[in-house]
Protein backbone atom coordinates (compact mmCIF):
# COMPACT_ATOMS: atom_id res chain seq x y z
CA UNK A 1 0.00 0.00 0.00
CA UNK A 2 2.77 2.38 1.02
CA UNK A 3 4.73 1.37 -2.06
CA UNK A 4 1.78 2.27 -4.34
CA UNK A 5 1.75 5.79 -2.89
CA UNK A 6 5.49 6.05 -3.28
CA UNK A 7 5.52 4.87 -6.90
CA UNK A 8 2.38 6.82 -7.83
CA UNK A 9 3.81 10.00 -6.32
CA UNK A 10 7.19 9.58 -7.96
CA UNK A 11 5.48 8.97 -11.31
CA UNK A 12 3.27 12.06 -10.90
CA UNK A 13 6.16 14.46 -10.21
CA UNK A 14 8.50 12.90 -12.78
CA UNK A 15 5.97 12.85 -15.59
CA UNK A 16 4.70 16.39 -14.88
CA UNK A 17 8.21 17.79 -15.11
CA UNK A 18 8.85 15.91 -18.35
CA UNK A 19 5.48 16.75 -19.95
CA UNK A 20 4.83 20.37 -18.87
CA UNK A 21 6.69 22.16 -21.66
CA UNK A 22 5.80 19.55 -24.31
CA UNK A 23 2.12 20.17 -23.51
CA UNK A 24 2.59 23.90 -24.03
CA UNK A 25 4.79 23.59 -27.13
CA UNK A 26 3.45 25.77 -29.90
CA UNK A 27 1.97 28.22 -27.39
CA UNK A 28 5.25 29.35 -25.90
CA UNK A 29 8.14 31.11 -27.54
CA UNK A 30 11.57 31.39 -25.96
CA UNK A 31 13.73 34.50 -26.45
CA UNK A 32 16.92 33.79 -28.39
CA UNK A 33 19.24 34.17 -25.38
CA UNK A 34 17.28 31.44 -23.61
CA UNK A 35 17.58 29.10 -26.59
CA UNK A 36 21.33 29.73 -26.59
CA UNK A 37 21.50 29.08 -22.85
CA UNK A 38 19.66 25.77 -23.33
CA UNK A 39 22.44 24.58 -25.64
CA UNK A 40 24.67 24.40 -22.55
CA UNK A 41 22.25 22.05 -20.82
CA UNK A 42 23.49 18.58 -21.86
CA UNK A 43 27.19 18.84 -20.88
CA UNK A 44 26.57 21.00 -17.80
CA UNK A 45 23.85 18.80 -16.29
CA UNK A 46 25.73 15.58 -17.03
CA UNK A 47 28.86 17.04 -15.42
CA UNK A 48 26.88 18.00 -12.30
CA UNK A 49 25.97 14.31 -11.99
CA UNK A 50 29.45 12.93 -12.80
CA UNK A 51 31.67 15.20 -10.68
CA UNK A 52 30.45 14.16 -7.20
CA UNK A 53 30.11 10.50 -8.17
CA UNK A 54 33.78 10.16 -9.16
CA UNK A 55 35.39 12.51 -6.62
CA UNK A 56 33.28 11.41 -3.64
CA UNK A 57 32.37 7.76 -4.38
CA UNK A 58 32.17 6.95 -0.68
CA UNK A 59 30.49 10.17 0.41
CA UNK A 60 33.60 12.20 1.25
CA UNK A 61 35.91 14.08 -1.09
CA UNK A 62 38.67 11.71 -2.24
CA UNK A 63 41.12 13.52 -4.54
CA UNK A 64 43.93 11.00 -4.72
CA UNK A 65 45.75 9.04 -7.43
CA UNK A 66 44.62 5.97 -5.48
CA UNK A 67 40.93 6.73 -6.12
CA UNK A 68 39.98 4.16 -8.83
CA UNK A 69 36.82 6.09 -9.77
CA UNK A 70 38.94 9.17 -10.56
CA UNK A 71 41.74 7.26 -12.30
CA UNK A 72 39.38 5.25 -14.51
CA UNK A 73 37.53 8.48 -15.37
CA UNK A 74 40.82 9.96 -16.53
CA UNK A 75 41.36 6.90 -18.74
CA UNK A 76 37.83 7.37 -20.12
CA UNK A 77 38.44 11.07 -20.87
CA UNK A 78 41.67 10.28 -22.73
CA UNK A 79 39.95 7.47 -24.66
CA UNK A 80 37.06 9.76 -25.60
CA UNK A 81 39.48 12.44 -26.83
CA UNK A 82 41.47 9.96 -28.95
CA UNK A 83 38.83 7.59 -30.30
CA UNK A 84 35.68 9.79 -30.30
CA UNK A 85 33.57 6.65 -30.07
CA UNK A 86 31.12 6.28 -27.21
CA UNK A 87 31.08 2.50 -26.98
CA UNK A 88 34.90 2.32 -26.91
CA UNK A 89 35.01 4.96 -24.17
CA UNK A 90 32.50 3.10 -22.01
CA UNK A 91 34.13 -0.30 -22.45
CA UNK A 92 37.70 0.96 -21.89
CA UNK A 93 36.61 3.03 -18.88
CA UNK A 94 34.82 0.09 -17.29
CA UNK A 95 37.75 -2.26 -17.96
CA UNK A 96 40.14 0.29 -16.43
CA UNK A 97 37.91 0.54 -13.37
CA UNK A 98 37.63 -3.24 -13.01
CA UNK A 99 41.42 -3.60 -13.45
CA UNK A 100 42.19 -0.97 -10.81
CA UNK A 101 39.68 -2.24 -8.29
CA UNK A 102 39.87 -5.98 -8.66
CA UNK A 103 43.20 -6.43 -10.50
CA UNK A 104 45.40 -4.13 -8.42
CA UNK A 105 42.96 -3.96 -5.53
CA UNK A 106 42.70 -0.16 -5.19
Amino acid at each position, binding site marked *: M*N*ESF*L*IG*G*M*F*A*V*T*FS*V*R*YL*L*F*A*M*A*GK*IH*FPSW*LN*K*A*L*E*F*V*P*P*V*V*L*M*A*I*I*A*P*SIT*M*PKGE*LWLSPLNP*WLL*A*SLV*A*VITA*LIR*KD*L*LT*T*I*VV*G*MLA*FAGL*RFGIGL
Partner: protein
Amino acid sequence: MSTVYTAINNAEQSRKREFLNGASATFPLLVGAAPFGIIFGTLAEPNGLSALGAILMSLIVFAGASQFIALGLLAAGASIPIIIATTFIVNFRHILYSANLVSKVKHLPHYWRAIMAFGLTDETFAAVNNRYLQQGNLTRAHWFYLGSFLAMYSNWVLCTYIGLTLGNIFPQMQDWGLDFAMSVTFIGMVIPYLKNRPVIVAVLVSAILAIVSHDLPHKLGLLLASFAGISVGISLLMIKNRSSKVGESK
Protein backbone atom coordinates in the same frame (compact mmCIF):
# COMPACT_ATOMS: atom_id res chain seq x y z
CA MET B 1 -3.12 5.21 -57.45
CA SER B 2 0.21 3.46 -57.55
CA THR B 3 2.10 6.69 -56.74
CA VAL B 4 -0.03 7.11 -53.61
CA TYR B 5 0.76 3.56 -52.63
CA THR B 6 4.50 4.11 -53.15
CA ALA B 7 4.39 7.29 -51.06
CA ILE B 8 2.74 5.47 -48.17
CA ASN B 9 5.19 2.63 -48.50
CA ASN B 10 8.15 5.05 -48.44
CA ALA B 11 6.77 6.83 -45.40
CA GLU B 12 6.45 3.53 -43.60
CA GLN B 13 9.98 2.54 -44.52
CA SER B 14 11.48 5.82 -43.38
CA ARG B 15 9.59 5.51 -40.07
CA LYS B 16 11.06 2.07 -39.62
CA ARG B 17 14.52 3.33 -40.55
CA GLU B 18 14.28 6.22 -38.08
CA PHE B 19 13.08 3.84 -35.35
CA LEU B 20 15.95 1.40 -35.92
CA ASN B 21 18.51 4.23 -36.17
CA GLY B 22 17.24 5.58 -32.85
CA ALA B 23 17.61 2.20 -31.19
CA SER B 24 21.09 1.61 -32.59
CA ALA B 25 22.33 5.13 -31.76
CA THR B 26 21.29 4.36 -28.18
CA PHE B 27 23.07 1.00 -28.03
CA PRO B 28 26.32 2.28 -26.44
CA LEU B 29 24.24 4.03 -23.79
CA LEU B 30 22.48 0.76 -22.98
CA VAL B 31 25.86 -0.80 -22.18
CA GLY B 32 26.41 1.91 -19.60
CA ALA B 33 22.85 1.89 -18.25
CA ALA B 34 22.67 -1.90 -17.87
CA PRO B 35 24.98 -2.25 -14.83
CA PHE B 36 23.17 0.71 -13.27
CA GLY B 37 19.80 -1.01 -13.71
CA ILE B 38 21.24 -4.23 -12.35
CA ILE B 39 22.50 -2.61 -9.14
CA PHE B 40 19.17 -0.86 -8.72
CA GLY B 41 17.64 -4.34 -8.73
CA THR B 42 20.20 -5.77 -6.33
CA LEU B 43 19.81 -2.86 -3.89
CA ALA B 44 15.99 -2.79 -3.86
CA GLU B 45 15.20 -5.51 -1.33
CA PRO B 46 18.10 -4.81 1.09
CA ASN B 47 16.90 -1.17 1.21
CA GLY B 48 13.28 -2.02 1.93
CA LEU B 49 11.56 -1.98 -1.48
CA SER B 50 9.81 -5.23 -2.46
CA ALA B 51 10.75 -7.04 -5.69
CA LEU B 52 7.35 -6.17 -7.18
CA GLY B 53 7.79 -2.55 -6.06
CA ALA B 54 11.20 -2.38 -7.77
CA ILE B 55 9.85 -3.70 -11.09
CA LEU B 56 6.82 -1.40 -10.93
CA MET B 57 9.04 1.58 -10.12
CA SER B 58 11.20 0.88 -13.18
CA LEU B 59 8.08 0.37 -15.35
CA ILE B 60 6.11 3.38 -14.11
CA VAL B 61 8.61 5.99 -12.88
CA PHE B 62 11.47 5.15 -15.28
CA ALA B 63 14.02 7.59 -13.84
CA GLY B 64 17.34 6.01 -12.88
CA ALA B 65 18.93 8.60 -10.62
CA SER B 66 15.80 9.30 -8.60
CA GLN B 67 15.02 5.59 -8.20
CA PHE B 68 18.46 5.15 -6.61
CA ILE B 69 17.97 8.13 -4.35
CA ALA B 70 14.54 6.80 -3.36
CA LEU B 71 16.20 3.55 -2.22
CA GLY B 72 18.76 5.46 -0.17
CA LEU B 73 16.03 7.53 1.47
CA LEU B 74 13.86 4.45 2.14
CA ALA B 75 16.79 2.79 3.88
CA ALA B 76 17.36 5.96 5.91
CA GLY B 77 13.71 5.87 7.00
CA ALA B 78 12.60 9.02 5.14
CA SER B 79 8.84 9.61 4.79
CA ILE B 80 7.12 9.12 1.44
CA PRO B 81 6.38 12.85 0.86
CA ILE B 82 10.09 13.61 1.40
CA ILE B 83 11.07 10.96 -1.17
CA ILE B 84 8.56 12.35 -3.67
CA ALA B 85 9.80 15.92 -3.11
CA THR B 86 13.39 14.78 -3.65
CA THR B 87 12.37 12.98 -6.85
CA PHE B 88 10.86 16.23 -8.07
CA ILE B 89 14.09 18.15 -7.46
CA VAL B 90 16.35 15.49 -8.94
CA ASN B 91 14.20 15.23 -12.08
CA PHE B 92 13.74 18.95 -12.46
CA ARG B 93 16.69 18.88 -14.87
CA HIS B 94 14.33 17.25 -17.38
CA ILE B 95 12.57 20.58 -17.77
CA LEU B 96 15.81 21.88 -19.25
CA TYR B 97 15.90 18.94 -21.68
CA SER B 98 12.26 19.39 -22.67
CA ALA B 99 12.76 23.14 -23.11
CA ASN B 100 15.52 22.27 -25.54
CA LEU B 101 13.17 19.98 -27.53
CA VAL B 102 10.03 22.18 -27.50
CA SER B 103 10.53 23.49 -31.04
CA LYS B 104 10.92 19.92 -32.33
CA VAL B 105 7.69 18.51 -30.86
CA LYS B 106 5.25 21.36 -31.38
CA HIS B 107 3.86 19.92 -34.65
CA LEU B 108 3.13 16.52 -33.06
CA PRO B 109 -0.22 15.36 -31.63
CA HIS B 110 -0.51 15.32 -27.85
CA TYR B 111 -0.40 11.53 -27.46
CA TRP B 112 3.00 11.54 -29.18
CA ARG B 113 4.24 14.32 -26.92
CA ALA B 114 3.03 12.41 -23.84
CA ILE B 115 4.86 9.24 -24.92
CA MET B 116 8.02 11.24 -25.64
CA ALA B 117 7.75 13.00 -22.27
CA PHE B 118 7.48 9.68 -20.45
CA GLY B 119 10.58 8.44 -22.27
CA LEU B 120 12.72 11.53 -21.65
CA THR B 121 15.99 10.44 -20.01
CA ASP B 122 19.54 11.78 -20.01
CA GLU B 123 20.51 9.13 -22.55
CA THR B 124 17.60 9.48 -24.98
CA PHE B 125 17.93 13.25 -24.84
CA ALA B 126 21.61 13.00 -25.79
CA ALA B 127 20.94 10.55 -28.65
CA VAL B 128 18.00 12.55 -29.99
CA ASN B 129 19.81 15.86 -29.63
CA ASN B 130 22.53 14.54 -31.95
CA ARG B 131 19.84 13.46 -34.42
CA TYR B 132 18.25 16.91 -34.42
CA LEU B 133 21.63 18.59 -34.86
CA GLN B 134 22.07 16.70 -38.14
CA GLN B 135 20.78 18.32 -41.26
CA GLY B 136 18.25 16.60 -43.46
CA ASN B 137 14.65 15.53 -43.17
CA LEU B 138 13.45 15.75 -39.58
CA THR B 139 9.73 15.17 -40.23
CA ARG B 140 9.88 11.61 -38.91
CA ALA B 141 12.58 12.12 -36.28
CA HIS B 142 10.04 11.36 -33.55
CA TRP B 143 10.28 7.72 -34.66
CA PHE B 144 14.01 7.95 -33.93
CA TYR B 145 13.05 9.19 -30.46
CA LEU B 146 10.64 6.28 -30.01
CA GLY B 147 13.35 3.79 -31.00
CA SER B 148 15.77 5.30 -28.51
CA PHE B 149 13.16 5.41 -25.73
CA LEU B 150 11.98 1.81 -26.18
CA ALA B 151 15.58 0.55 -26.27
CA MET B 152 16.31 2.34 -22.99
CA TYR B 153 13.00 1.34 -21.43
CA SER B 154 13.15 -2.39 -22.17
CA ASN B 155 16.82 -2.46 -21.11
CA TRP B 156 16.04 -0.67 -17.83
CA VAL B 157 13.14 -2.94 -16.86
CA LEU B 158 14.99 -6.10 -17.90
CA CYS B 159 18.12 -5.09 -15.95
CA THR B 160 16.04 -4.32 -12.85
CA TYR B 161 14.71 -7.87 -13.06
CA ILE B 162 18.20 -9.32 -13.58
CA GLY B 163 19.45 -7.33 -10.60
CA LEU B 164 16.67 -8.60 -8.35
CA THR B 165 17.64 -12.16 -9.26
CA LEU B 166 21.42 -11.65 -9.01
CA GLY B 167 21.10 -9.75 -5.74
CA ASN B 168 19.75 -12.90 -4.12
CA ILE B 169 22.64 -14.97 -5.47
CA PHE B 170 25.48 -12.45 -4.82
CA PRO B 171 24.41 -10.25 -1.90
CA GLN B 172 27.82 -8.50 -1.85
CA MET B 173 27.32 -7.22 -5.44
CA GLN B 174 26.37 -3.74 -4.24
CA ASP B 175 30.02 -3.16 -3.22
CA TRP B 176 31.44 -3.87 -6.68
CA GLY B 177 31.21 -0.26 -7.83
CA LEU B 178 28.95 -0.99 -10.81
CA ASP B 179 27.61 2.55 -10.45
CA PHE B 180 30.79 3.65 -12.19
CA ALA B 181 29.19 2.48 -15.45
CA MET B 182 26.87 5.48 -15.36
CA SER B 183 29.68 7.94 -14.69
CA VAL B 184 31.80 6.59 -17.54
CA THR B 185 28.82 6.68 -19.93
CA PHE B 186 28.13 10.30 -19.05
CA ILE B 187 31.85 11.15 -19.49
CA GLY B 188 31.67 9.73 -23.01
CA MET B 189 28.55 11.83 -23.65
CA VAL B 190 30.09 15.09 -22.32
CA ILE B 191 33.47 15.12 -24.11
CA PRO B 192 32.13 15.77 -27.66
CA TYR B 193 30.41 18.96 -26.42
CA LEU B 194 33.67 20.52 -25.16
CA LYS B 195 34.49 22.43 -28.33
CA ASN B 196 34.81 26.04 -27.20
CA ARG B 197 35.80 28.03 -24.14
CA PRO B 198 32.30 29.00 -22.87
CA VAL B 199 31.24 25.33 -22.75
CA ILE B 200 34.47 24.21 -21.09
CA VAL B 201 34.25 26.90 -18.39
CA ALA B 202 30.52 26.18 -17.87
CA VAL B 203 31.27 22.49 -17.34
CA LEU B 204 34.12 23.24 -14.90
CA VAL B 205 31.92 25.60 -12.87
CA SER B 206 29.20 22.95 -12.78
CA ALA B 207 31.66 20.26 -11.63
CA ILE B 208 33.13 22.36 -8.81
CA LEU B 209 29.75 23.56 -7.55
CA ALA B 210 28.26 20.07 -7.69
CA ILE B 211 31.08 18.81 -5.44
CA VAL B 212 30.96 21.77 -3.04
CA SER B 213 27.16 21.66 -2.70
CA HIS B 214 26.90 17.87 -2.57
CA ASP B 215 25.72 17.86 1.05
CA LEU B 216 22.73 20.14 0.45
CA PRO B 217 19.42 18.41 1.24
CA HIS B 218 17.29 16.73 -1.46
CA LYS B 219 20.17 16.80 -3.98
CA LEU B 220 19.58 20.52 -4.51
CA GLY B 221 23.26 20.80 -5.40
CA LEU B 222 22.56 19.22 -8.81
CA LEU B 223 20.22 22.06 -9.72
CA LEU B 224 22.43 24.76 -8.22
CA ALA B 225 25.47 23.51 -10.15
CA SER B 226 23.49 23.20 -13.40
CA PHE B 227 22.04 26.70 -13.24
CA ALA B 228 25.40 28.22 -12.26
CA GLY B 229 27.19 26.43 -15.11
CA ILE B 230 24.58 27.48 -17.68
CA SER B 231 24.62 31.11 -16.46
CA VAL B 232 28.39 31.34 -16.66
CA GLY B 233 28.38 29.69 -20.09
CA ILE B 234 25.76 31.98 -21.63
CA SER B 235 27.45 35.07 -20.12
CA LEU B 236 30.81 34.11 -21.61
CA LEU B 237 29.16 33.42 -24.97
CA MET B 238 27.49 36.84 -24.98
CA ILE B 239 30.74 38.61 -24.06
CA LYS B 240 32.52 36.67 -26.81
CA ASN B 241 29.87 37.57 -29.41
CA ARG B 242 29.87 41.22 -28.36
CA SER B 243 33.64 41.60 -28.56
CA SER B 244 33.74 39.89 -31.97
CA LYS B 245 31.06 42.32 -33.22
CA VAL B 246 33.08 45.30 -31.92
CA GLY B 247 36.14 43.84 -33.64
CA GLU B 248 34.24 43.54 -36.95
CA SER B 249 32.95 47.13 -36.88
CA LYS B 250 36.50 48.48 -36.55
